[in-house]
């Protein structure tokens, strides 16, 4: 074989190889082409195996041509491989396409009960003013629920609380969270800023605004200089935090045997913004809590000297706050636990 022949064959091989590479339809075919042309027993190797028959001076030249052919084919292989990969990926992606409008996998959302969350929110707001949480029992003594709060047996003020009594002598179901005032004063020394959330009980016919079980949060602040002005300031701050800033409030006399002076605290009706509606009995106001300056007898029963210490207490109805907060018209729904209700929180 001479130089020319071998050069011509190499050129033909290159052309045929390139055509085969272009014609390979999938990675396997391409692999076969690679083996056929560039493999150990491939055409290029075989052809260059005849190089020994050439005169020595031609060998480098043929070698160079051979290398160029190899490089050309390898480059073409690489390009083709990339093309085939891209096509294969595209085909796979096309195959994997789904109806993206199908719904996502359902996860249970879970919910927290609005009454307890309202208690937590109340505690969070007063917590910003240094109030800390205490707890008292649901089954209370008559002494702490009434007598220590300046309500002796047979006192006409007992009519304010229709009480559920137990068969354990001296114990009843607490009618309010106020006995917590005594618990706190006996546990800790002033300055006191305490909150006592809890479940309360009353002998009460159930209707849209009353239940025989309900939730309250008691607040107590006692030190040497807490005044009614502080009570007002904190209740205003609370109202604005809970119901939005700027909502007018009203401070008027109330009556509780365990506070003197006693306060009823009204918030401008959140339903009608003060214009008058059925929810506020056309007054434009809603009473959200009772409060007052802790009665000297109660301070003394809590172990404090009323000449030195003074302060205020308040009792917030959690149900009432929650009703206003969420726009609920019937408190019975809180204890019904209908999922259609719970799922909204």
């Amino acid at each position: 074989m001479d130089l020319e022949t071998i050069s011509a064959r190499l050129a033909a091989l290159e052309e045929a190889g390139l055509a085969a590479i272009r014609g390979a339809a999938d990675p396997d075919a391409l692999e076969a082409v690679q083996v056929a042309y560039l493999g150990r027993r491939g055409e290029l190797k075989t052809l260059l195996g005849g190089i020994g028959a050439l005169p020595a001076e031609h060998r480098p030249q043929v070698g160079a041509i051979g290398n160029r052919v190899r490089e050309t084919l390898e480059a073409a292989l690489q390009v083709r491989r990339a093309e085939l990969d891209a096509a294969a990926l595209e085909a796979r992606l096309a195959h994997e396409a789904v109806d993206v409008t199908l719904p996502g996998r359902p996860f249970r959302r879970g919910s927290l009960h609005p009454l307890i969350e309202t208690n937590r929110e109340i505690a969070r707001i007063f917590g910003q003013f240094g109030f800390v949480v205490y707890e008292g029992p649901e089954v209370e003594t008559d002494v702490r629920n009434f007598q220590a709060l300046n309500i002796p047996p047979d006192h006409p003020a007992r009519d304010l609380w229709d009480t559920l009594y137990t068969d354990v002598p001296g114990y009843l179901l607490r009618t309010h969270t106020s006995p917590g005032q005594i618990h706190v004063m006996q546990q800790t020394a002033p300055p006191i800023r305490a909150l006592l959330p809890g479940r309360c009980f009353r002998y009460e016919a159930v209707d849209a605004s009353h239940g025989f079980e309900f939730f309250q949060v008691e607040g107590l602040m006692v030190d040497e200089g807490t005044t009614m002005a502080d009570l007002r300031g904190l209740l205003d701050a609370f109202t604005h935090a809970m119901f939005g800033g700027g909502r007018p409030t009203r401070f008027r006399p109330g009556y509780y045997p365990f506070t003197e002076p006693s306060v009823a605290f009204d918030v401008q009706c959140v339903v009608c913004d003060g214009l008058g509606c059925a929810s506020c009995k056309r007054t434009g106001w809603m009473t959200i809590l009772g409060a007052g300056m802790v009665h000297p007898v109660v301070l003394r029963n809590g172990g404090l000297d009323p000449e030195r210490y003074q302060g205020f207490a308040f009792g917030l109805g959690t149900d009432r706050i929650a009703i206003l907060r969420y726009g609920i018209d019937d408190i019975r729904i809180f204890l019904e636990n209908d999922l259609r209700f719970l799922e909204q929180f």
Partner: protein
Amino acid sequence: MRVPLSWLREYVEIELSPEALAERLTLLGMEVQAIEHRGADWRRIVVGELVTVEPHPQSDHLLITTVRTGPGEPLLTILTGASNVAPGQHVPVAVPGAVLPGGRRIEVTRMAGRESQGMLCSGDELGLTSDAEGILILPLETPVGAPLVDLYGDAVLDVDVKPNRGDALSLLGLAREVAAVTGAQVRWPEIALSESGTPTAEHVAVEVTDAGLCPRFVARYVDELDVGPSPLLVQARLSAAGVRPVSNVVDASNYVMLELGKPTHTFDAAAIAEGRIIVRLARPGERLETLDHVVRELTADTLLIADPRGPLGLAGVMGGAASEVRDATTAIVIESAVFDPVSIRRTARRYALRSEASLRFEKGQEPRLARIGADRVAQLVAQWAGGRVAPGRIDTAPVEPAPRRLPFRPARVVRLLGAPIDAAEMRALLARVEVETAPAQPGDAVRVAADMPSVVLDAEAAREALVAIVPTHRRDLEIEADLAEEVARVRGYDRIPGRLPETPMPEYRPDPRRAVDAVRDALAGRGLDEVVTHALIGPHDHERLGIAADDPGTIRVTNPISAEHSQLRRSLLPGLLRVLVENERQRRVDVALFEVGHVHDLAAGEPREQPMLGLLLAGDQAGAAWNQPPRPADLWEARGLVDALCSRLGVPLPEATVPAEIPPYAHPGRTAQLRVSGPDGQALDLGRVFEPHPRYLEAVGARSPHVAVALVSLTALQAALPRARRYVPFPRVPAVERDLAIVIGAGRSAGDVERVVRDAAAPLLRGLRLFDVYRGAPLGPDERSLAFRLTLQAADRTLTDEEIDAAVAQVVDALATRLGARIRS
């Protein structure tokens, strides 16, 4: 208290509208809960004059009348069934188109063949008097044609008088409050008697056996009276105030109760044996028929009004039927007494007879009202029933107490209120509620609290102090703080400026609810819905749990709302299941709920309450969807949630055992006891996970076949919380995994295997996971294969194959010797 404004105006000038007055009273602490416009529902009811009254030719009980309802108006022909009508009378006429209270419409009708062009009204139909039989006969001076509402319409305020203000349970008391607001003068009714005949003392004698129970008893005697209806105005006022008119004598007593706040009683004098009244406690076995015609067995601590023969009435609560004033009564004894408030309250409650009178007595009575009330009733009876008032009164305690002197320190009032009010302003404010003030003297004592030693003023303190002269009707003003309230009240609470506290902050205190809130957040985050159920449940709920209705450990309510809510829950389970059942009724069958709440019982005779977590799963837990199979609730779902909760809180995973005793509400083969070890290594009983017994589910009406429950003690969970979360360095050397399929026979549990593996592989074991359970061939019929993956790792080095093989061999050995288990290969 219902306050007709037209009546209130007798005692004080009122220029405000009813709405404005209501607001002012509310801001003064006399909350007006409603304003009723009486007569607002009398539409097209006018004054008519009867022109003719003829019998109906076809009916014995009907009369045909013609009525003039104004000059120029055509005469109306109106039929009536009443028999008290006569020509010339003025009567209320509902003309066609009228609407009566209650919504009844009056149209032209036919009765017994004759047309009736409207209706003549009774007092009862209009709510003016209690007479439903006859037509209401109006005074002749009533202008014909006038709408009735212009003559008898009224605004009635419903005032919520607080229990400490018994004095304001009266028109006069509320007139004082109005005066405090408006500055008007209070007008007392003029009480003037003309007495004649023989002196009272010759008709009546009074003996009080215990002056503590009856500090004052005043009696008067009126005879030659004629019992009949009261004047229309009086009946209308009483009706408006919510008191049913009865007769002129009884109405006089009620009128004075509402006017002065002084309950009195009138006896038929003929029914009092020997004219002797004895105020005493009941004797064993005594009985009394009260005005409501109930015969009552009297208990020994009941205060009675009696005569020498026996009881006449329950003092301050209700009179007796035998001495009741009747139509035939011609002479009466008026009782106007002061009783011990506690005694009256107890009696009224014991006999379930709470009356307007007892409500006033139990709030305490001003002594001088006993005298004034007796005189006022006598005066009105004489006026309305034409009686003759006997000269003089019987009075067991004629000396009346003087106003109370109440020293106070204006500086303390300022300190309490946080508002700058000077002493002069305080004096002016107090004067508006008839509390006069004077300078204090050294030695005057300030009452800080009723049952504490008073603070005695020295010369310097006295210079800054004042003395309030409290009128006798203000029995509620007893201590310095009461005067602070009075000052603030009259000045206007709303004028107290708000400010944020500047006093020292309390010490930090960890929030006791933090752990509970973490539990709630974790479970809600896991998709559970929080519920709040009743703490009061029924005996049936407990019985289904295997707790007898009369179990001595249950706390019962002695006066329950209903049997369904008569016992304090000893478990959260009944409440949770009720929520399931209610939601199943709404076709919500896939639920995951939890509740955090207290359970109650008696421990050593004392009430005990324990915080618990209950969670209930029912139906599909995966969420039915096109791309995932359902996962019915089961024991392991509940267990997994408890595990997840524990690990979220940093509590070690609880260990499950088969409880020694299975409660009757739980599936006997699907109940696990959970135990967890606390930070000090103490074993804590965390609670139970179980599937409820099918019979229990059936009994409570739950339909779902797949229900699982966990009842967890929050006390134990809190005790198991780590004291602090500390980072534990994890080994950086590779870990090795080895799988073992462990075959166990009957009577061996997965828990047993896990315990043994943990024991045997202890120092190197970093993880242990059960990934498969297999039963069936080629295993024996009682055998199970549990496939565990062990993760082995040393803290400081890569384990060699020899070490690993040795550790695994040790595990296999231990399983074989301790559980008779073998390895399946």
